């Protein structure tokens, strides 16, 4: 799903807060200051003052000289940060992922939200009007990337950047819209860069040499080629259930009962939220201050309490209760969505899939997940590279399994060297010795030459022969290298049906 971000810019956050607390200050010209290098410097100016041309960064004495009857207050950066965080919490009603962007912005990941308000235009208006009612000046912009939304809200004209159009929207904006540091901006100004499109037309390597990596990184972020992550104000919910015990628990049966109760609580929550457990930890807090724990993992997100119980049950014997466990916690450390209409893997009924996934969970719990293998074809001729292992149960082959070349049903884990008797170079052997048995070759097919894949490894090619002895046993042999350069070696690699 393509991402959409909304940036809320509280341009007068600090002064709006003052005006809200002291209604008589509303529409008045006042400023907030903070000491900097021994001088009092303007941190924030009220809208009325900004109209007069006062901007943050000026010295308070200068402002007083221009406008003698203004009120000044000292600024409180910590209160402003708190205010921003509480605004972010409040904005959770519009999107589940809200991140504060100090000092004066909020970033909302709104992917999949605006249609609930009837489109992005209605959405942006709804948010802005609600915030204005609350007494804050705000501006909002929507774009595909955080960088583009940041730039548009401050320097753009049209608040909504259509999906994929961020490059066009950035074209006419000044370089300061790229969130750059002051020295870079000054250098750009000196060199005459007025708009971002001038930067875009210059080769990347030149830009990097002159301005460093940061500029390119910011540009790529704004264009959406580089990922940028949100730090949401409210982290994704933690799935943790606690069960304190009246008496310390010391028996396996007691642990089982505790586990059943915890699983029941957790699974009910999973059903409400449409989630399922992938990995879980059961922790026991012992009365001697130690903690003991057992972990489980599932192949597919599961919220079947009976199944999860079975997985934990295998490991309950590993929990050492000692003098007794007084508190149990069950945490789902990895949670995934379980959708009712999950696409059918292997085109079977979903009951079958669940049964098999649960069986594999059981097996993984007993012998380890590393024992379970599934294979997909890989477009390589080299036999060892022609399959790739996959961990998931969902993976489907991208290419057909090849059947154009004979391949043995049994393949040795690694080719084993054999001694051969060959009449002529490029001929299959007359007989060969494999594990102290002399095998007379009666019929042979080949060679099938397989070259090394040079992008993976170097070395001589293999010439494969399919040979049959007089009893009908069929082998797959190969000669590594060609007669002439050095003495090539022969190997046995597999057995045919």
């Amino acid at each position, binding site marked *: 799903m393509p991402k959409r971000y909304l940036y809320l810019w509280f341009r007068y956050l600090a002064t709006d807060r003052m005006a809200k607390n002291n209604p008589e200050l509303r529409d008045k010209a006042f400023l907030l200051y903070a000491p900097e290098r021994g001088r009092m410097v303007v941190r924030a100016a009220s809208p009325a003052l900004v109209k007069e041309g006062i901007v943050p960064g000026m010295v308070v004495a200068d402002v007083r000289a221009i406008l003698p009857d203004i009120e000044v207050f000292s600024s409180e950066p910590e209160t402003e940060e708190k205010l921003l965080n509480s605004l972010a919490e409040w904005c959770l009603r519009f999107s589940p992922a809200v991140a504060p962007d100090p000092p004066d912005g909020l970033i909302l990941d709104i992917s999949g939200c605006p249609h609930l308000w009837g489109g992005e235009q209605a959405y942006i208006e709804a948010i802005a009007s609600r915030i204005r009612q609350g007494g804050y000046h705000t501006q909002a912009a929507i774009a595909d990337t955080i960088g583009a939304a940041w730039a548009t809200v401050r320097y753009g004209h049209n608040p909504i950047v259509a999906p994929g159009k961020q490059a066009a929207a950035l074209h006419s904006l000044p370089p300061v819209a790229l969130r750059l540091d002051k020295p870079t901006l000054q250098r750009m100004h000196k060199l005459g860069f007025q708009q971002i499109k001038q930067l875009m037309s210059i080769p990347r390597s030149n830009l990097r040499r002159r301005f460093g990596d940061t500029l390119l990184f910011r540009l790529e972020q704004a264009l959406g080629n580089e990922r940028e992550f949100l730090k949401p104000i409210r982290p994704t919910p933690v799935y943790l259930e606690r069960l304190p015990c009246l008496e310390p628990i010391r028996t396996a049966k007691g642990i089982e009962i505790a586990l059943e109760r915890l699983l029941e609580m957790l699974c009910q929550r999973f059903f409400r939220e449409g989630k399922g457990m992938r990995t879980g930890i059961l922790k026991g807090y012992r009365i001697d201050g130690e903690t003991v724990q057992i972990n489980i993992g599932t192949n597919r997100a599961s919220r079947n309490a009976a199944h999860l119980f079975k997985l934990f049950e295998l490991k309950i014997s590993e929990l050492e209760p000692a003098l007794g466990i007084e508190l149990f916690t069950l945490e789902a450390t990895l949670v995934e969505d379980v959708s009712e209409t999950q696409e059918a893997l*292997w*085109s*079977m009924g979903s*009951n*079958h*899939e669940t*049964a*098999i996934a649960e*069986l*594999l969970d*059981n*097996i993984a719990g*007993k*012998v380890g997940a590393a*024992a*379970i*293998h*599934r*294979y*997909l*074809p890989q477009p390589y001729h080299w*036999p060892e590279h*022609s*399959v790739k292992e996959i961990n998931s*149960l969902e*993976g*489907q*082959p991208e290419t057909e*399994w*090849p*059947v154009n070349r004979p*391949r*043995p*049903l*049994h*393949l*040795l*884990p690694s080719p084993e060297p054999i001694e051969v008797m060959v009449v002529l170079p490029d001929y299959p052997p007359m007989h060969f010795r494999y594990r102290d048995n002399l095998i007379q070759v*009666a*019929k*042979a*097919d080949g060679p099938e030459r397989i070259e090394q894949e040079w992008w993976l490894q170097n070395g001589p090619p293999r010439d494969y022969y*399919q*040979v*049959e002895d*007089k*009893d*009908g*046993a*069929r*082998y797959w042999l190969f000669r590594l290298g060609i007669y002439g350069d050095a003495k090539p070696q022969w190997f046995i690699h*597999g*057995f*045919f*049906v």
Partner: protein
Amino acid sequence: MEAIVEKKEMIRQLKEKILTLEGFSTGKDSRQLDFGLGPINAAFPGGAFPMAAIHEFVSPTETCAAAANGFLANLLGTLMNKGRICLWVSVGRRLFPPALKFFGIEPHRVIFIDVKREKDALWVLEQALKCQSLAAVVAELRNISFAESRRLQLAVENSRTTGFLHRQLLHSENTLACVSRWKIRPLASRSEDGLPGVGFSCLEVELEKIRNGRPGVWQFECRDGSFRILPNRHPASLSDSSTKKEQNYA
């Protein structure tokens, strides 16, 4: 005359009843699956390959093991035909997954469980046989006792999954509670018109033991992944085996 017909019908019904009591599926499902085995079907109880059962394959050498797995893959191909999944449990697996495609199996539909200890393999096998959603379970292991094999047979009777036990490079054979014991040996390949090179692979399939059936020996030719019986050698080998049997019992 009528009395004889009635008696015969009665005996047939009783036979079927005995089979069901012994845990054989004589229902419709097993009859519908055609394994393409031709005359071998006559050797099975009720004329159909016993599906809810464990079959034992014994391979004394590595080349026999490859041949047995080839025959097994052919059976699996039929069992897995409706996009079903098969589990392949083994200790020291040699099977090369892409080669299964030659036998009509999509190799990604086979889930391989590679364990280090035979004890684990047995545990996995028993768990898997209890799962009704699997088409079949193959286990490649060496040592298994009679009591353990009985547990497997009980698991299979409930779930009606087909199980294959492939025992390779055995030191000593022991009797198991399996429905059948197969021995498969490779034969010299045959090519049409005496063309040089390796021709179509041929196998000798010996059904050494089958509960309520008739053991026998057949010869098969494998062409493009499907097995065809070689008719001309069939009667001779059957009589051959029956004499051998008699010798064994004598």
